[in-house]
C-alpha cells in the first residue's frame, strides 16, 4: 500500500516522548497512549486471574484437599479466575489495546472519532475494576456465569460484582461504538471498505457485537441486583421467577462475547501470515465476509449452552443446527490462512510462530466445538472438563495467543524497539507445550465424565489432573517469560526498530516507529489493495 507520508518529520519526537509525566498519560486522549493504559490494566488482571488459575490447578493436582482447605475458597478462586479473565482481561483484550492502537493507523486517521470518549472508556473500565476489587472483600462464589437462583441467594457480594461487570460492559460498549464510527467516518482518501486490512474488519465485526450484545447482559446483571435487593421475582423460582430466562439472557451476550474475544485474534492472524509469507491474503473477500457472518450468526446460537438446561427439545434442535452454521465461516478462514502460505517466501519470526500455533490450536478448538454443537454428544459433555478444555483452546489458544502474537508483531511499531528473537521463541515453546499439556488431559477427563467446578474428585481421575497441573505451571512460566521479555525490551532495550521492519504494505508501517502524536504528518492517500505482496509474474519455489 503506497502511502505518501512525508519523511520530513523529526524522527526523535513521537507519541511516547512528546509529553512527559504520569499525568500526561492519564489525561492523554491519544489512542496509542490509551492502548498502553489498557495494556497495563488488563495484563495486571491477566496476572491475577493466572495466579487464581494456578491455585485451582495446584489444588486439583491430587485427589483430596491440597492447598485449599475448604470448598468455599476453591469456589471463590475459580470464580475469580473466570471473572478476571473474561470481564477484565479477554473482553477488553485485543480490541481495547491493539484495536485502539491500530485502527486509526491502519485506516489512515489521526485518532479515533471520539478521543475523549475513548479515554473516558478507560476510566469507566478502571471504575469497574475498582468495584470488582471492593467485591473481593467478600468474594463471589457463583462462577463467572452468575446463574440464578444461586447468585440471588448466596451470601457473597454478588451485587457488587455484577455491578462491576455492568460498568465494565459500559466501557466495552463505548469502545465498540467509537470504533464503528471511526471506521465509518475516518478512513483516509482511497481507503475503501474493500481495502481495509482484515484486522480492521475483524475489529469492526467485534465492535458491532460489543455494541449490540453488551447492553443485554448489563440489564440482566442489574436485574440480578434487583432480585437480591428487593426480590423482584424475575429469576428466582421461589418468588415466581424463571432461572432459565436468566440463562437465556446471559448467554445472549455471553456466547457472542466469545466472538468479541476471538474475532480480533482472527484479524491478527490474517495480518501476520501474509507479511511473513510475502503473499496476498488468500480470498480476502471471503475472509471479510466470514468475519461478518460469524458476528451475525453468533447472535442466534446462544442456547447451545443450554441443551440440558430445561429448554424445549425443539429449541435444542434449532440451536444445534444454527450452531453448525458458525463452523462454516470459521473453516473458511482457516483454509484461507493456510492457502496464503502456498508458494510464499516464509520466514519464521516469533509472530509467525504464534500465528501458526494459532491455526493448530484453533483447529482443535473448532473441531471440539463440533462435539458440543452435536445434541446427543453435548448432553454427555455439558459441564464436564471437555467443555473446560474446549473453551480454553478457544479463548486462551485463540484470543490470548492472538494477543501475544499481536504484541510481538506490532511491538516495534508501538515502542520503536526490537526484542530478542531467541528469548521470545523460547518463551513461545514453553507456553505452547505447557498449554497443550494442560488442556489435552482435560479433554480426556471430559471423556471420562469428570464434571467441572469440582473441588475434589474420585481418585480415578488423578493422573490426568496431575499432568494438567504440571502443564499449567509450564504454561504460566511461558506467558511470564514472553511478557517479561517484551516489558524488559520496552524499558531497557537498546535495539532500535526501523520504520517497517517486516517490509509490510499496510499503513501503520508507513509512518515512523513509534508514530508521532497524530500518526501521520500528512494524511496518506491509499491507492492499492491491503496485501499487494508478490509480483504478478512471480513463481515462488
Amino acid at each position, binding site marked *: 500500500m503506497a502511502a505518501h507520508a512525508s519523511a520530513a518529520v523529526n524522527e526523535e519526537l513521537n507519541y511516547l516522548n512528546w509529553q512527559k509525566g504520569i499525568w500526561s498519560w492519564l489525561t492523554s486522549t491519544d489512542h496509542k497512549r490509551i492502548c498502553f493504559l489498557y495494556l497495563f490494566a488488563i495484563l495486571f488482571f491477566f496476572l491475577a486471574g493466572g495466579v487464581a488459575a494456578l491455585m485451582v490447578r495446584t489444588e486439583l493436582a491430587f485427589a483430596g484437599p491440597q492447598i485449599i482447605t475448604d470448598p468455599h475458597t476453591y469456589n471463590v478462586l475459580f470464580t475469580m479466575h473466570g471473572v478476571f479473565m473474561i470481564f477484565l482481561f479477554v473482553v477488553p483484550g485485543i480490541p481495547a489495546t491493539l484495536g485502539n492502537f491500530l485502527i486509526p493507523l491502519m485506516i489512515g486517521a489521526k485518532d479515533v472519532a471520539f478521543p475523549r470518549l475513548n479515554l473516558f472508556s478507560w476510566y469507566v473500565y478502571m471504575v469497574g475494576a475498582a468495584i470488582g476489587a471492593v467485591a473481593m472483600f467478600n468474594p463471589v462464589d457463583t462462577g463467572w456465569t452468575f446463574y440464578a437462583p444461586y447468585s440471588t441467594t448466596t451470601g457473597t457480594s454478588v451485587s457488587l460484582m455484577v455491578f462491576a461487570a455492568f460498568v465494565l460492559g459500559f466501557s466495552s460498549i463505548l469502545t465498540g461504538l*467509537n470504533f464503528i464510527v471511526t471506521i465509518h467516518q475516518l478512513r483516509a482518501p482511497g481507503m475503501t471498505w474493500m481495502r481495509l486490512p482484515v484486522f480492521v474488519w475483524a475489529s469492526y465485526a467485534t465492535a458491532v457485537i460489543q455494541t449490540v450484545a453488551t447492553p443485554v447482559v448489563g440489564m440482566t446483571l442489574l*436485574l440480578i441486583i434487583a432480585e437480591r435487593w428487593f426480590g423482584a421475582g424475575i429469576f428466582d423460582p421461589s418468588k415466581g421467577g424463571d432461572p432459565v430466562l436468566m440463562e437465556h439472557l446471559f448467554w445472549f451476550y455471553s456466547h457472542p462475547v466469545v466472538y468479541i474475544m476471538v474475532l480480533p485474534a482472527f484479524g491478527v492472524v490474517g495480518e501476520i501470515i501474509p507479511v511473513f509469507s510475502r503473499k496476498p491474503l488468500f480470498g480476502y473477500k471471503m475472509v471479510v465476509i466470514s468475519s461478518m457472518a460469524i458476528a451475525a450468526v453468533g447472535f442466534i446460537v446462544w442456547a447451545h449452552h443450554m441443551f440440558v438446561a430445561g429448554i424445549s427439545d425443539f429449541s435444542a434442535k434449532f440451536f444445534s443446527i444454527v450452531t453448525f452454521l458458525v463452523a462454516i465461516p470459521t473453516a473458511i478462514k482457516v483454509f484461507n490462512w493456510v492457502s496464503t502460505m502456498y508458494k510464499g517466501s516464509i520466514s519464521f519470526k516469533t509472530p509467525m510462530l504464534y500465528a501458526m500455533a494459532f491455526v493448530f490450536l484453533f483447529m482443535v478448538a473448532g473441531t471440539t466445538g463440533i462435539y458440543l454443537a452435536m445434541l446427543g454428544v453435548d448432553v454427555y459433555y455439558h459441564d464436564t472438563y471437555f467443555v473446560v478444555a474446549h473453551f480454553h483452546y478457544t479463548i486462551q489458544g485463540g484470543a490470548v495467543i492472538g494477543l501475544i502474537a499481536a504484541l510481538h508483531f506490532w511491538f516495534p511499531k508501538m515502542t520503536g524497539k526490537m526484542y530478542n528473537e531467541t528469548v521470545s521463541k523460547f518463551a513461545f515453546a514453553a507456553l505452547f507445550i505447557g498449554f497443550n499439556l494442560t488442556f489435552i488431559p482435560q479433554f480426556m477427563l471430559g471423556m471420562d465424565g469428570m464434571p467441572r467446578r469440582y473441588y475434589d474428585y474420585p481418585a480415578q481421575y488423578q493422573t490426568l489432573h496431575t499432568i494438567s497441573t504440571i502443564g499449567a505451571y509450564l504454561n504460566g512460566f511461558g506467558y511470564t517469560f514472553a511478557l517479561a521479555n517484551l516489558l524488559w525490551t520496552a524499558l531497557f532495550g537498546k535495539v532500535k526498530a526501523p520504520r517497517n521492519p517486516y517490509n509490510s504494505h499496510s499503513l501503520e508501517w508507513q509512518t515512523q516507529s513509534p508514530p508521532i502524536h*497524530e500518526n501521520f504528518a500528512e494524511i496518506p492517500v491509499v491507492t492499492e489493495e491491503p496485501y499487494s505482496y508478490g509480483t504478478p509474474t512471480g513463481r515462488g519455489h
Partner: protein
Amino acid sequence: MSAVAHPIVDHNVPAGEPPHIHHMDTVTAYGAAKLGMWLFLATEILLFAVMFCSFAIMRYYHLAEFHDASKHLNIWAGGFNTIVLLISSFTAAVAVTKAQKGDNAGVVKNFGISLVCGLIFLAVKGYEYSEKAHHGMFPFVWNSDFYHYKNFLGLYFCMSGLHALHVIIGMAILYWYGIRPAMRSRFSGKYYTPVELGALYWHLVDLIWIYLFPLLYLVG
C-alpha cells in the same frame, strides 16, 4: 508537531461557527456524532429489550396476577404523563428547527418547555411511587396483601425506575448541550449538532415510555 497539546474540540470560534476539531473536518464530525448517537440509542433500546422480554415471559407465567396488579396502577397519572412526554418531544423537535435557523432564543424556549415537561413527568411519577409505597406495594415495604403482585410490581419498578433515570439524564443533556450553549448564541445553520443529538436522545426517552405505558397500565 509541537509539544503542546491542542484541545480536541476547540470551541473558541466565532458564534455560530462549528467548533474546530483537530482530527476531522466539520462534515465528518457531524456524521460521526450522529452515527455515534444512533448507535448509542440502539444500545439503550437493547437495554430495555431485556426487560420487555422478561415482562413478556413473566406475564405468560403469571397472567392472572399481572391482570389484577395492573389495575392498581393509576391509569390517569400514566396517561397524563404520556401526554406530557409527547408535548416535550414535540417541542424538542421544534428546538432543532429553531437551531437550524439560528434562532437560539427559540432553542432555549422549546428545550425549556421539554425540561419543564420532564420535571412534571418526574413529579407525577414520584406521586405514583409514593402512593404505591403508602399502600405497601413497594419492594421494601411489602404489604402481605400485595405480595403476590411482586412479579408485576418488581418489573414495574425496574422498568419505570430505569426510564425515570433516563428522563433525568435526558434533562441534563438538554440543559447542558442545548439550553446553556444556546443562551450564548452558539448555534446556527452551520452548527446545531448538540441540539439535534439532544433531541434524538429525548425522543428515545419518549419512545420508550410510549411502549411502557400501554404495557404496564393498559394491557394488564
